[in-house]
């Protein structure tokens, strides 16, 4: 015979934990709510007293300022929202290129800490300690000064093979002339990506069924390259390149990166790579040494051990801190405002000075970074779930 549970006392007693919890929550919510109301009320009062207009209507007015570099066509007569779009695209451009380069450099440096060669180990250690102990803003300023002050003027640029030029005007490099052949090559590559993916799926399934290993990395890449090559041949195999030529005041032709972009990029990449190197080193160090010995006893080479045994296990440890480094790089790209690279912060401050809409402009900055941060974090969480250990 089971006894009935004792009747729950429902008294609004101070001794009841639930009741106290409720009171605390109501109190906390009231304090926060009052504080927010106080701030909002003051803001409205202040704006009325100072005659500041508010609202996002200014986004539709003409911007009235030029922007140094832009990935989409833009001039000063365009509306403010277009200027903000240019800024967002510039931020994303430097962040994406920076993340890719910092990951490559940081991974190399992190693996270098385990080199058998003492000089390589020492250099990697020295790099990490030097670059992560100096503020990133200072590094950006130094690189910008290097590009605008130390490099030779545009009339006598440093040149590699007459194709790559480095001068105060930035870095210029040749690009292929865009034509039918290039378009077909891109189309061929795009067409072959699903084929390569399907082949990879099939190869993995065959391996699981028959234990006969097929290439799951190089063969799909070869398929994509072959598709691209076929498109290029079909388009008449064009080989024309657009070379940069030193003009009187600017580099003509080719493609170029401005000193502002290079300064931001180099500063962010070198700084973040130091942190990524530490993340990679910690990840590799977290793999138990018995794993390496077991791989050795199976006869795997050093490279195979790294690729097949250590890295897949280290990746689980590496991904979460790597995500926060990517987010840090994206957020640090806001320092571009200090050297005049037109990222979203610098566009917003220009618009703020022009229109006086401080609340709106700062809200836009925060919103842009919040969205970027949350979506990057979302993507990396998805990837993390894929790489996470599969247990029962």
């Amino acid at each position, binding site marked *: 015979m089971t006894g009935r549970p004792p009747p729950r006392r429902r008294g609004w007693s101070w001794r009841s934990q639930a009741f106290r919890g409720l009171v605390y929550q109501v109190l906390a919510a009231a304090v926060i709510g009052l504080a927010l109301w106080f*701030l909002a009320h003051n803001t409205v009062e202040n704006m009325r007293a100072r005659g500041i207009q508010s609202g996002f209507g200014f986004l539709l007015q003409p911007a009235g300022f030029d922007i140094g570099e832009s990935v989409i066509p833009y001039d000063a007569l365009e509306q403010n929202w277009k200027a903000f779009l240019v800024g967002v695209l510039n931020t994303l451009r430097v962040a994406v290129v920076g993340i890719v380069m910092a990951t490559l450099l940081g991974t190399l440096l992190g693996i270098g800490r385990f080199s058998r060669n003492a000089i390589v180990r020492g250099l990697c250690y020295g790099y990490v300690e030097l670059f992560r102990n100096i503020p990133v803003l200072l590094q950006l300023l130094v690189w910008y000064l290097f590009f605008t002050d130390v490099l030779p003027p545009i009339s006598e640029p440093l040149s590699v093979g007459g194709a790559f030029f480095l001068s105060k005007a930035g870095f210029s490099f040749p690009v292929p002339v865009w034509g039918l052949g290039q378009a077909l090559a891109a189309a061929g590559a795009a067409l072959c990506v699903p084929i390569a993916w399907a082949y990879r799926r099939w190869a993995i399934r065959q391996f699981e069924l028959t234990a006969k290993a097929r290439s799951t990395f190089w063969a799909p890449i070869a398929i994509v390259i072959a598709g691209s090559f076929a498109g290029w041949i079909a388009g008449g195999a064009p080989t024309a390149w657009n070379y940069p030529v030193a003009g009187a005041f600017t580099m003509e032709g080719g493609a170029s990166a401005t000193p502002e972009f290079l300064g931001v990029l180099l500063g962010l990449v070198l700084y973040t790579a130091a942190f990524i190197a530490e993340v990679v080193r910690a990840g590799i160090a977290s793999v138990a040494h018995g794993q390496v010995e077991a791989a050795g006893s199976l006869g795997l080479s050093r490279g195979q051990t790294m690729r097949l045994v250590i890295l897949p296990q280290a990746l689980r440890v590496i991904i979460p801190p790597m995500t926060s480094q990517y987010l840090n790089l994206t957020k640090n790209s806001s320092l571009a405002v200090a050297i005049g690279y037109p990222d979203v912060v610098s566009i917003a401050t220009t618009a703020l000075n022009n229109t006086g809409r*401080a609340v709106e402009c700062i809200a836009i900055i*925060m919103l842009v970074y919040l969205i970027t941060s949350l979506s990057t974090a979302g993507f990396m969480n998805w990837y993390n779930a894929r790489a996470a250990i599969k247990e029962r």
Partner: protein
Amino acid sequence: MASVFQPIPPRPAPVRTTGYVAWARANLFGDWRSTTTTIVLALVALWLLPGMAQWAIFQAVFHPSLESCQAARGTGACWAVVAEKYRYIILGRYPYDEQWRPVVATLLLMGLLGVSCTRRFWRPWLVPLWIAVLAGYFVLMAGGVLGLSKVTTDLWGGLPLTIMLATLGIVLAFPLAVLVALGRRSKLPAIRTMCIVYVELVRGVPLISVLFMASFLFPLFMPVGKSPDVLLRVLVGITLFAAAYLAESVRGGLQAVPKGQVEAAATLGLTYWQTQRKIVLPQALAMVVPAVMNNFIAIFKDTSLVTIVSLYELTGSLGLALNADADWRPYKLEGYFFIAAIYFAFCFAMSRYSLWIEKQVSVSRTR
């Protein structure tokens, strides 16, 4: 037949595994790849180092003379710019005759930091000492009492400002961070939600937008006609920003405390706050020392950003010292290297200290 004793030849001495030669054989010339790397790197060093040494030391100008700097332009560094401008770079726009005050105040603050970092002085009287030293710092810097002339905060600058912003940012952010971390793990949904929103919101935006907010929006937030000092606004911004990052580090430690500890505390009849203060936090904070020290280093480096909202700490005061002076402006790179060395010294010292303190707090776990 008498067999004659024939000694077998002696075995060769074992290969030495200690000493410089053995170390070099293992670490520099282990196999052909390692040997090649060593040789290539040595050649690169031979190619680069003499030029760098020439520029930085042998051809460099050390005594403050503009003519020799201009003569050495392109071949040697002009460290003379540091010798000429060091007071402006380190102390900013603080009135020249009163500059002993920031020096004394900063030495006091650094002495306090040194004392707080030493195990022997971890005693309760450290708290009143902190209050006294901070009060002394602000009296010395601001003046207006004790016969010291008044110096407004917009004239403060350089290293004293950097150290003060970092110290106060850390000291104010840490208690807030512990509260937020506890709140984020609280069972009360309203409090948990507020803490999550605060942490994720702040961690999602760059510090510079928080500083812009402190600079442009805080004046609007206050009652009409009242606007706090810009230094105070920036300090509030840095504190709120740093607290969100610190809170995440602390939360990592809270999560690592085994549940049995809290349950045991409940069995003993400890209240929530007693449990946190006596059982959970001591274990959690000991575990997160490396992460928290990294946060502290990040705060120190982040103070360089206040130069963007017109507070001239170390980075900003270098710009002030050189931008207006057409003669010395070409040697800004050397100036940057000088302040980079200062930042490096502070951050490196902090990371070394972090290793030491990690060893101290893990004593309880090592047997």
